[in-house]
């Protein structure tokens, strides 16, 4: 079966983790090029070792290759803001793993279907990917008046980008809890814990609901949702709840990384790369099936 060719811009931790995921389970997507701007980067060396084209021209080499249809942006919000219009002009779909939010927030288990024809997909935040599905599941049973999420990450798994702009995490996540999760109001908190050995990424979700008596249905719906997310984030699991406590429903989800490139405690990075691949797979499936020339039959 024909696969759509993709490129990774930014051969850092996220880019490399994504590379290994595409190698191990890309069905509609294959990797062609990994591009960066820093000579001697470990990521580029790994990409070469694994047989991929590499380049030091950054975005330019991707734009210059008409074969590449999907770009994974693993750089920074600033870089993606500059690159996004150029990808679109060049007819490439952008999967944005930065906080730029040029395109809509996409949480595959919740709203990918509604955006799948788009050209730019934002992956929200790790906390958003872990918690928005749960909020949406509760909201499908009873209106969520207020959702609050607390993401706890191991210090080791929080990179310099997250640290330098931690407000971006809380604001974007709270935003997605409302706009994608369906809560009327949202709040997000992030905590870094330096314990050794590093802890797994943990997310607590509190929902204030209109109909707490529907707890059995909430449980069933959340259970289904967790299975749905697990299909593309294998290490995603419900650790506690849903549990009723006064007017709030409490749930905790944990993300164990696959350990494809990054250690297992980096569930926060794993969930983003796994989500990016899942999104790209759906988008690619649609492109491959809708345009006959892409099927390789003609």
């Amino acid at each position, binding site marked *: 079966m024909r696969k759509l060719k993709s490129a990774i811009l930014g051969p850092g931790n996220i880019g490399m983790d994504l590379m290994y995921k595409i190698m191990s389970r890309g069905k509609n997507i294959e990797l062609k090029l990994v591009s960066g701007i820093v000579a001697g980067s470990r990521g580029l060396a790994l990409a070469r070792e694994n047989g991929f084209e590499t380049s030091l021209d950054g975005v330019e080499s991707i734009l210059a290759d008409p074969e590449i249809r999907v770009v994974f942006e693993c750089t920074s919000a600033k870089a993606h803001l500059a690159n996004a219009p150029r990808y679109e002009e060049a007819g490439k779909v952008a999967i944005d793993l930065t906080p730029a939010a040029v395109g809509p927030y996409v949480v595959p288990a919740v709203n990918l279907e509604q955006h799948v024809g788009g050209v730019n997909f934002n992956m929200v935040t790790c906390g958003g990917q872990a918690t928005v599905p749960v909020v949406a599941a509760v909201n499908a049973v009873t209106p969520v008046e207020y959702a*609050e999420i*607390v993401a*706890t990450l191991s*210090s080791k798994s*929080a990179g*310099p980008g997250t*640290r*330098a*702009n*931690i*407000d971006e995490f*809380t*604001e974007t996540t709270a935003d997605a809890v409302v706009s994608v999760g369906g809560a009327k109001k949202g*709040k997000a*908190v*992030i*905590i*870094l*814990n*330096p*314990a050794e050995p590093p802890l797994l990424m*943990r997310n*607590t979700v*509190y929902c*204030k609901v209109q109909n707490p008596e529907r707890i059995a249905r909430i449980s069933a719906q959340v259970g289904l949702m967790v299975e749905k997310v697990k299909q593309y984030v294998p290490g995603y699991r419900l*650790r*506690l709840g849903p*549990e009723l*406590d006064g007017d*709030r429903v*409490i749930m*905790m989800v944990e993300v164990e990384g696959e350990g494809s490139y990054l250690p297992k405690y980096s569930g926060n990075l794993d969930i983003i790369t796994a989500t990016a691949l899942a999104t790209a797979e759906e988008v690619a499936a649609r492109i491959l099936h809708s345009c006959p020339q892409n099927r390789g039959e003609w």
Partner: protein
Amino acid sequence: MHAVSHRFTPDDMAVIAAALAVAGLDTIEVGHGDGMGGSSYQYGFAAATDVEYLRAVKSVLTKTKLAVLLLPGIGTHRDLEKAAKYGADTVRIATHVTEADIAAQHVQIAKSLGMEAICFLMMAHMAPTAKVVEQARLFDSYGADVVYVTDSAGALLPHQVGERIAAVKEAVSVPVGFHAHNNLGLAVGNTLAAVAAGASSVDGCLCGLGAAAGNAQTEILAAVFDRMGIHTGIDLYKVMDAAEDVVQPRMHRPQIVGKLGLTTGWAGVYGSFMLHATRAGDKYGIDPRDILVELGRLKTVGGQEDLIIDVASRFAREAGDSGKHLLQRI
């Protein structure tokens, strides 16, 4: 406000702040115990909004500096802007003792808003002195006006306080402060150890009203410093009056070192966990001390209140399971 579950009203705060101002305190911090934006399921909802507290207190202060608390990850730059707008002169920016770099942006924003930035290294007992020094240097490099060693768990012993303060003092270019909790009954003693080692800013609460067994009692510190010949500018009678006549009637319970406060300090757990652990213990039928000790073993940091429910429900499940085994054996 931890000790009153964040339930003081803006009027309560204004009355207390006015009494403190009359007594001659330098800076008064107001708001939710977990800082701006702290009002939540995770930490407890405050009786009023951050802005309502700020407005009420600002209206009674003239010379005294008004401070807010900000924990990056909970509060954001928007909260800082709000605080500046409603008259806060000072922000105390607090991170876990190993995570100072998440506050760089907030220190810079505070400075650009014209605020004094006091930076806290919380849970200072969890890191060796060398690490505390490294992180204090980071705060210094971001532009902090004062760097605090914060004993959030009330777990430090006097010699450990002295060692950390002296090393930080040596390493940074700005004044050094200390924030004590009384869980091991050492809040005043540790504060004195900090001053002896070079701290020039210290924290207190009237009646010690703070998380777990509370903080150093402001009125006691005022009396002790006076006896030591250290000038604080505090009127001793007035600060005693403020404690006994204004704060005490508003307290939910006496501020003592009870078994839970003591366990909090002994286990090295973030002070505000205590009341949450008590509630979880009630709900799941577990001794809250077991919860606190487990939280210490898990090396939890400030802000991880959600883990209390996790631990309590796990203990309850385990207790249930072993109960079943027992029945089967019988």
